């Protein structure tokens, strides 16, 4: 006995074809069961109340206008001769990475234009370690302010122009009784001059440079 085809069962479930026109249904339990299951599933899909029972969740009332506006924008972008190309380039998602890349290139170019960084050459031969270690002889230090570096001269000028009292006042140095700071602060002008001379003399000694 041939069973009903799926198409025939669909027609029966939807009522397109009346059951009375199909005598096979009266004889076949399997086809009757299939038809009943088909109808039951259709009822679940649409819900007992019809389509509305299983409705798609309704979006916000503003959504429909937003959807129309977005469609209009996309249509304008795709329209020949439209301004879509410019607009798409002005979007933050496109423009920000481009701007970041341009900024990076500019920074690299500026740094590169300042020339290579001068590095002090490192001696190729390792320095001896121990008693025989000998540092290469260095040129003697010139008096402060007479070096080639103009910034040192500037510092020297500032140093001679600024008195200890001014410095103390400017920097709000605390004067602890008996401390070295207090001793320096309380020196007379002649004593300070002598101290400066002694310090400079000491600094120009080879021993001050660590040479043995």
């Amino acid at each position: 006995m041939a069973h009903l085809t799926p198409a025939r069962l669909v027609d029966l479930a939807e009522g397109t074809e009346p059951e009375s026109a199909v005598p096979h249904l009266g004889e076949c339990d399997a086809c009757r069961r299939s038809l009943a299951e088909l109808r039951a599933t259709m009822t679940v899909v649409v819900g007992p109340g019809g389509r509305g029972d299983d409705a798609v969740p309704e979006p916000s009332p503003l959504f429909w206008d937003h959807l129309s506006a977005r469609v209009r924008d996309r249509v304008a972008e795709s329209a020949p001769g439209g301004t879509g190309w410019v607009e798409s380039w002005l979007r933050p998602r496109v423009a920000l990475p481009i701007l970041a890349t341009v900024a990076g290139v500019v920074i690299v170019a500026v740094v590169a234009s300042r020339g290579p960084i001068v590095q002090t050459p490192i001696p190729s031969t390792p320095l001896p370690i121990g008693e025989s270690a000998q540092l290469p002889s260095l040129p003697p230090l010139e008096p402060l302010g007479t070096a080639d570096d103009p910034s040192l001269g500037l510092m020297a000028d500032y140093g001679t122009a600024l008195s200890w009292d001014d410095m103390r006042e400017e920097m709000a140095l605390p004067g602890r009784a008996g401390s070295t700071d207090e001793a320096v602060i309380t020196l007379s002008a002649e004593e300070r001059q002598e101290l400066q001379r002694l310090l400079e003399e000491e600094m120009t000694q080879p021993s001050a440079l660590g040479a043995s």
Partner: protein
Amino acid sequence: MGPVAGVTRDDGASLGELDDVRLLDACRAGRPGAFDVIVERHRRSVYQLCYRFVGSHEDASDLSQEVFLRVYRGLGRFRGGSSFATWLHRIGVNACLNRVAVKKPLTEELDARQHADTRTESPSERVLRQERGARVRAAITQLPPKQRATLVLRMYQELSHEEIAEVLGSSVGAVKANFFHALGNLKRLLGDEAL
């Protein structure tokens, strides 16, 4: 889009009064606002079709935009051999099938709001109905694409089997067979207690 629907031509015909075919003619003629009226007229149907396929608002929104963009780009190719609704559904189904082919179906939240009339039901009935609806929608997104398309177009978009055959480019017999198998698979996915 309200204002554009009221745009009138010199002969006094409002865009909102034109049927779809004449609106398409107006679009092709470059009449401003004509396509806006088409979108306004069909946006809910397209959105719901997309939602049935992808099961999420965000994806349905994106897909709806894509569908209308495809419609706009295909205006020159529509010759009126089928109805505009059939053509629109064909574009919509193709866009949805493309999307679901590359993206896994999402599980819909059970508390998604619905627009059914809830004034006559109790809170517990409402919760049950929402849960049942969400389960059905989730099960539909797990069907094979062609079965899903057939079921959605038949049960929710209320297209005839002949129209579905035209949309999907297959025979009426194949559509009915797909529909039959879709319902069978849905029954299996939902379990016996749902029936």
